[in-house]
């Protein structure tokens, strides 16, 4: 008998031979060409002559995939020729009755996309017999799922149980798919390891039942969460339908076949409500019903003695998800990380019990220590509101002790290995000398001494100024009178000289005129008479910025007074000229210095 598949197969071989350029073969095989509704067909795509990369399965309309694609590689020797083939295998299940062609699958080889051939499969309706068998099995073999609640708050516990009911014998039982509980935190009560069958009578009918899996779930996100079905793959021995209408499962004279049957629990949907608004800042994440205690083992102790803070939470709910408190201990306490002690049970399918956090503290300073308030906030599912417990009055008194304790002694700074290790540090010794005690409140600023010393320099300044000024004034006076007298003295002298001139006493006359001139200049310019000379007199005049002609006139007069008495000629006339000159010089100097 040459089936259609063979023809196709041959055809595809011929095709591949015909197209010499095409060195590949890509074809499909099915384990059966005719299938009844509810059964499966295994499709195998084979590729020869290259290394395919991307396998794209065919687009299926009338079939649904019932397995993943498994890839393989096979070698075969036909007529001494070895052929290698890549295989892609999966199973499909028909959706309806009819004849369907499965469209080609695709692979990519060296960048080229290649198509496989097609295959046609005929789907027939379940036979009455088969339908009968399935119905019979379904009635007598099923899994039920129980949930303690299907609408819960985020974090609220639910118990979920999968239970097998059976009234048939099984020749095989595999765990095909076990739910993964995505979106839940689970605490397993029992699973397949604990699976045990027992007899149970339900509505008067004897069943064998067993709990496949039982868990406590804590939803970790809100929304509708789906719990996957629990799927078992079984083989049920079924007697070949023959004569008469006898029970299927009666193995009496039986001619049995193993009927493969996949057994699946219903899909369970859990609606998870988010926690209401108004969550306290210190919300612990606990949802359920709880009690809370925080206490200290003692309230009076000495430095170095241990003291323990116990925080205990009791109740029903997700206790195991609680995290320890991050207690901020005051300085002066050496604290240790919390130790957790659990007394939590899940008996009765509910997580309940108590959790205790133990914080050991060792104070190394004395004084009163107050712990920050320790509070617990949780969501009460019965009241449907947040509840906060708080213990704010945790304090204890630490007395001094002779014991030497940790950080208090490390104040020497020796923890730092880079620094010089100072063995002992001591304070500088007391002061013995210069004990300058003074009255409290005494201040050098504003003290008598300060004021006296501040005023003294100015008093001294005033006094010196006073005396200095007076002396200076006196000195100025002496010179002034002399200056004032200078002309009168000179006039007196000249008067005397005139008388001598009249007496014609020339020697005395010239002496008198010289003294008059020198005396005048000496008084005028405060030069002592003894030091007087022609040069000094002219010098003084020059310094007084007298006109040049006066200076030369004065010089000439002094010379004439010196030489005239020895000069020949008329002494009387000479005397007259000298006298006039002297009067002229003095009045000139006097008038020019008055300017």
């Amino acid at each position, binding site marked *: 008998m040459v089936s259609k598949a063979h023809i196709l197969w041959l055809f595809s071989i011929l095709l591949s031979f015909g197209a010499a350029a095409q060195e590949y073969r890509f074809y499909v095989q099915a384990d059966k060409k005719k299938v009844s509704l509810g059964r499966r067909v295994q499709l195998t795509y084979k590729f020869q002559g290259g290394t395919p990369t991307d396998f794209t399965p065919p687009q299926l309309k009338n079939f649904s995939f019932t397995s993943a694609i498994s890839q393989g590689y096979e070698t075969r020797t036909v007529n001494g020729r070895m052929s290698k083939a890549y295989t892609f295998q999966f199973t499909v299940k028909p959706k309806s009755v009819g004849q369907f062609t499965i469209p080609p699958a695709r692979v990519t080889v060296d960048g080229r996309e290649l198509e496989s051939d097609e295959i046609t499969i005929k789907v027939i309706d379940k036979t009455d017999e088969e339908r009968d068998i399935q119905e019979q099995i379904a009635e007598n073999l099923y899994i039920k799922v129980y949930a303690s609640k299907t609408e819960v708050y985020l974090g609220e516990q639910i118990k979920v149980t999968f239970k097998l009911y059976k009234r048939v014998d099984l020749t095989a039982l595999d765990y095909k798919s076990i739910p993964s509980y995505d979106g839940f935190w689970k605490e397993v009560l029992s699973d397949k390891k604990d699976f045990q069958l027992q007899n149970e009578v339900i509505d008067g009918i004897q069943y064998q039942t067993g709990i496949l899996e039982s868990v406590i779930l804590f939803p970790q996100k809100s929304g509708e969460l789906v719990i996957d079905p629990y799927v078992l793959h079984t083989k049920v021995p079924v007697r070949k339908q023959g004569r008469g209408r006898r029970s299927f499962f009666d193995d009496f004279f039986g001619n049995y076949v193993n009927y493969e049957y996949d057994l699946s629990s219903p899909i369970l949907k859990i609606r998870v409500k988010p926690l209401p608004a108004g969550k306290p800042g210190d919300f612990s994440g606990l949802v359920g019903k709880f009690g809370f205690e925080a206490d200290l083992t003692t309230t009076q102790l000495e430095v170095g003695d241990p003291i323990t803070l116990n925080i205990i939470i009791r109740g029903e709910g997700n206790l195991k998800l609680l995290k320890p408190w991050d207690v901020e201990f005051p300085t002066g306490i050496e604290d240790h990380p919390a130790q957790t002690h659990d007394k939590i049970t899940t008996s009765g399918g509910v997580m309940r019990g108590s959790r205790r956090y133990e914080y050991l503290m060792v104070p190394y300073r004395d004084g009163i220590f107050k712990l920050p308030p320790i509070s617990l906030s949780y969501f009460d599912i019965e009241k449907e509101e947040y509840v906060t417990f708080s213990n704010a009055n945790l304090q204890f008194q630490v007395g001094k002790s002779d014991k030497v304790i940790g950080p208090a002694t490390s*104040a020497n700074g020796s923890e730092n290995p880079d620094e010089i290790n100072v063995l002992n540090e001591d304070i500088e010794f007391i002061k*013995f000398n210069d*004990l300058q005690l003074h009255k409290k409140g005494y201040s050098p*600023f504003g003290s008598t001494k*300060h004021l006296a010393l501040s005023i003294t*320099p100015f*008093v001294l300044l005033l006094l010196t100024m006073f005396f200095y000024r007076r002396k200076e004034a006196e000195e100025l006076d002496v010179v002034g009178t002399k200056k004032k007298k200078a002309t009168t003295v000179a006039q007196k002298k000249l008067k005397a000289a005139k008388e001598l001139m009249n007496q014609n006493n020339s020697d005395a006359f010239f002496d008198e005129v010289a003294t008059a001139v020198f005396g005048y200049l000496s008084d005028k310019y405060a030069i002592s008479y003894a030091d007087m000379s022609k040069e000094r007199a002219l010098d003084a005049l020059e310094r007084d910025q007298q006109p040049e002609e006066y200076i030369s006139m004065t010089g000439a007069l002094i010379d004439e007074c010196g030489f005239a008495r020895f000069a020949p000629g008329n002494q009387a006339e000479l005397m007259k000229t000298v006298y006039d000159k002297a009067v002229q010089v003095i009045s000139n100097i006097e008038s020019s210095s008055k300017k």
Partner: protein
Amino acid sequence: MRLVLIISIFLLSGPMRLAASELSLKEALDSFKAANELYQDSEFRAALFRYRSILEKGFESADLYFNLGNAHYKLENYAMSIWSYEKSLMLEPGFSEAKTNLELANKSVVDKVQDLPRIVWWHYWQRLKSIFGVGGWTTLSIIMLWLLAAGGFLLLTQKIHILKRIGVYLVIFGFSGAIFTGGIAINKKMHLNNPNAAIITSSNVYVKSAPEENSADLYVIHSGLKVALTDEIGDWLKIQLADGKTGWVLKKEMKGL
């Protein structure tokens, strides 16, 4: 002449006034010496009482506070030793031994308070002020006044140009110097009379948000910490830490400087 008379009366009145307290000063000095001997014999408690009695008589000095601090330190009253060294340094800022010992005593203080950041000039100014005590700055201001007077003398009496010039410079320098140094001396004196600071003496103190027992605890401070005082209501003082934190503390928990 009348001025001279007034000044000399003024100068003489000082020693006369001092004479009245001369007797107790001598007593105090004897006490001081006795206390120092007790200290040397490691009788710290007895020495402490003696030092205190001198303070109670109304005398003080940087050395006295220093020695008192040492006695407290030896008796492990670190908070009180800190108080004493601070007092000593207030009177004599350049007292290096007091600085060393204060540093050692401060190691016992648990609270490490970060100073508020200040501009660099503030630090220079503080350091400059602490070069001398009130006495030192007063002496400097007196020197400045003498220089001012000397400058005045040169300026008013001398005829020679260069001397007159030196006189002008001296007047300017002495005048501004006297104002500056005198200003610092006044500033320091006022600070000394009213330091507005205290040392915490209780082992640990809960600083409150308001001046009442039931108000919230803000934070905890410990003995030996120096705090600034900014306000007072009844038995409560408002404190401020170097990092700017404020709060209320009972007076009995601290000792004012």
